């Protein structure tokens, strides 16, 4: 499958990339190409120009912030690097766990966290994890000014985010999970694309009495955009994570989804049902790990 003709540039620095973005209104950033190129090959997208940011070194890598407490991930970090990062596995395992079930090894070696978030496919895995982690996304505009957007305000709708066309997503900041906090990602994969039909990420912290002192649930795949299941979270907060309490909370998860998607792979009814089942499983596993 052959895309329509386009111009191509591969800047070496972020500043060059921003300058090119400013100059060419019809341009699109190219990171791992694993969402954009398939769309171009199917001719669902036909950008006049691609600005390939994959060689910009300053956008790659995973590091702990100087004061500790957060981990900063460059937008160009491939899923495979998230998956195998010892730092993430130790301090923010949810992200490594979610990255590990994206597509297949080839996809994980090419696709990037920034590309996945900027593209905002309703079935992408990482948005659920980032929501549950209360991550912060940093974007840079053509003026060079940085802007921080909390994950909760980032996903706006089907394939739409808070990013402006002239902005580059530069990094993602996630918290280091404290002692007594557990997390889990449950994915029900579409067997064709291997994307999530529904994916649920959960973070549960327990206090000394064994009650939930923090509950965060991110849901992807079920609706047009990834969401937090606020009511389900509230239902479990302050309670012990017993099977019954978890089930009662999970029963409220689907309310957050809104208009569930429906397609040949899963009806909206089935998606909402899966949302409940996966929320229950994710909460139980996160609580067991806390």
């Amino acid at each position: 499958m052959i895309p329509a003709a386009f111009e191509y540039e591969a800047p070496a620095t972020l500043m060059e990339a921003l300058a090119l973005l400013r100059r060419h209104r019809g341009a699109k950033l190219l990171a791992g190409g694993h969402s954009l190129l398939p769309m171009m090959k199917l001719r669902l997208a036909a950008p006049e120009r691609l600005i390939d940011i994959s060689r910009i070194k300053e956008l790659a890598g995973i590091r702990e912030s100087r004061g500790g407490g957060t981990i900063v991930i460059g937008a160009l970090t491939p899923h495979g690097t998230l998956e195998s990062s010892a730092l993430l596995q130790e301090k923010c395992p949810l992200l490594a766990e979610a990255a590990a079930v994206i597509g297949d090894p080839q996809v994980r070696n090419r696709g990037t966290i920034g590309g996945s978030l900027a593209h905002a496919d309703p079935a992408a895995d990482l948005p659920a994890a980032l929501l549950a982690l209360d991550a912060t996304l940093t974007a840079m505009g053509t003026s060079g000014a940085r802007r921080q957007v909390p994950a909760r305000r980032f996903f706006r709708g089907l394939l739409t985010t808070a990013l402006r066309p002239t902005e580059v997503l530069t990094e993602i900041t996630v918290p280091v999970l404290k002692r007594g906090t557990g997390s889990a990602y449950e994915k029900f994969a579409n067997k064709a694309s291997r994307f999530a039909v529904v994916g649920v990420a959960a973070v549960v912290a327990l206090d000394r009495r064994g009650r939930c002192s923090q509950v965060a649930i991110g849901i992807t795949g079920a609706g047009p955009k990834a969401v937090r299941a606020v009511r389900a979270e509230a239902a479990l907060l302050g309670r012990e994570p017993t099977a019954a309490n978890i089930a009662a909370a999970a029963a409220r998860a689907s309310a957050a989804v809104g208009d569930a998607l429906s397609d040949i792979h899963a009806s909206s009814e089935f998606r909402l049902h899966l949302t409940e089942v996966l929320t229950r499983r994710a909460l139980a596993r996160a609580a067991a790990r806390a």
Partner: protein
Amino acid sequence: MAAPAVGSRIKRREDPRLITGTGNYVEDVTPAGTLYMALARSPHAHARLRRVNVKDALQHPGVVAALTGPEVRQIVDSVPCVVDFPDLKKPKWPVLAVDRVRYVGEAVAAVVATDRAMAVDAASLVQTDYLPLTAVTDPERALRPRSTRVHAEFKDNQAWYSLTEAGDVDSAFREAHVVVKQRLVNQRLIPLAMETRGVVAQYHAASGLLTVWSTSQNPHQLKSQLAALLGLPENQVRVIAPDVGGGFGSKIDVYCEEILACIFALRLGRPVKWIEERRENFQGTIHGRDQVDYVEVAAQRDGVITGLKVKVIADVGAYWGFFSPAIATSTIGLATGCYAIPNFRGELYEVFTNKTPVDAYRGAGRPEAAYIIERAVDLVALELALDPAEVRRKNFIGGPFPYATAGGMSFDSGNYRAALDKALQSAGYQRRRSEQKRLRQRGRYQGIGLSSYIELCAIGPWEMGAVRVDAAGKVTVLTGTSPHGQGEETTFAQIVADQLQVAVEEVAVQHGDTAVVPAGIGTYGSRTTAVGGSAVLNACLLVKEKAFKIASHLLQVPEDRLTFAQGTFAVKDAPDRAVTLAKVAAQAYTGSVPGAEMGLEASAYFEAPNLVFPFGTHVAVVEVDPETGEVKLVRYVAVDDAGNIINPLTAEGQVHGGIAQGVGQALMEAAVYDESGQLVTGTLMDYAIPAAEDLPLFETAFTVTPTPRNPLGAKGIGEAGTIGATPAVVNAVMDALAPFGIRHIDMPLSPERVWRAIQESAKARPARRRGPSARRRGS
């Protein structure tokens, strides 16, 4: 001499080049000055095509020429279908659509340009004016009296009808203790060869020779067809099928693209190349299966089946492909399976719809039959509360062979019970059944499914093989079969190595080039070894006959005093008087021998006297997650009987791939069309096929019941896995769901379908009782 080559596990000799990326595929063939072809295709399932205008396309940079339907029709009338039956409605399949389009993806115009991207861009500039018409996509609706007609020249969409009857069906049903009925859907599938189709056509005006590289399974047939279509003598057309990356039947057909590439090449005097895009492959290459089947079984209380009625409604799509009309006839022919069912009625309706044409896809009519009868046997077992293995045992054909079936077949040889027993033993069937009970008590739903399938192969009429021993004693084999994954560069070398007493490495096997191999039929229908291998064997016998003559001359003794062993001709009782095959060969090319022509080579044809019928029993073990409907295949045991096995390693490879495809139909695959005739599953993002992570390690074994119908005693193993797997897996899932009172779910058994069935079943209580503390599964 080492152990015989036949029967040993030799690694495929073709693999090093294929897995190191040094194979030579059609995509790798680009003669100097090549032009690229691209097609404009119909976005409508059914429409009047009022205008096709290529003016804009021709203006596009790099474009050299373009063709539309009316022009092409002057040159080539239609895409060929070689099957003819009495009363068969046979509409023309125009090379490029004229006046009307009948399925999404039908080609309406072709352009060639100096570069592939330019050709694709230009094709998108072809101007068309369509008047959309109602499409008919459901074969049962298409049979209704007032349905939209796919072909206006016929009074209805019923493309063909046949009735097969044996015994006294009505009495059998009247007298039956139980009658079991079920509607089954053998859903439409996409063949999806890893390599898409492609063609390069090159015409050399001075010599008048047209050379065509094609991803064909049957280059000799393609050569004859192209010659006839283009009005060229056959000896002026050469077809080369280089390395071909899978076909599964979809590369048997002569397609419009091959014809168009040749027309352009002849007209422009430049090579023309077309490589199919994956999306075109989904829409433009033939599809498989697509039947609605109604089955009724009459049985006694003890499980003995006395009668079978099968009604097959086969959706053939919009036109006939190369073999299309014949495909579903095998479903009727094998509907009684490997069971002695004396009373049978099989009705076949082949129906036109506004969908891509259906033709041979791995199994081609036989998987459908196996699915019908193997599901039916399980339903009988369920109805009578008998063990499905027992019901099979009670009904197996016990001989004598040849055995004439109610479906009109003559089974060559079989020992169905032995294969079943071996499979049950390997799977630990009895232990599995008690384990299943224990698990059910813990709220886990495991199912065990059997299928004792029968397969039909070794389609004739003949195949050609030639064997040449050169002056240095090295051997070259030519075969008219055309491998694209079957491995006969290895297996045919094994056959020859034993016959001529040489090492496998000394035998080179050539195929796929009509200028190298004088004649051939091709590779499909699991015919390669049984028919093609037998031809090669016969050629070896002729070569040996001649070698004996030469050896007798060299050793100065009559032939009947010679033995041939360990590569040497020796005089009986005087073993030190001997000559090697190499010496004999050297003599054959230096000095003449009285009574023998120069050279040491022979070619032979093997005419298949009748079909052969492999069989086997597959056992699938699945576990169903009742909360999500997800089916996990946890174990798979296959016992196949393909007669004598030339190379167990490559035979197992065929079984593995076959099972994967059969599992695909059972659990994942479906070509879904919407009401308007759009193919909804038109990319690999929507059409699910199994990947390694979906499959357990397959446990394979063979029983060996040679066929008397060819000198190798070999049957065929290419499609057996696919035929056996689909019903085994579906039966296993239904077995797992039996506690819910679920009797049948149509394929593919996707999580949602399974979940819904559980929801709807009145006996959903076991699931509820498990409560929310349900055991968790990994993500």
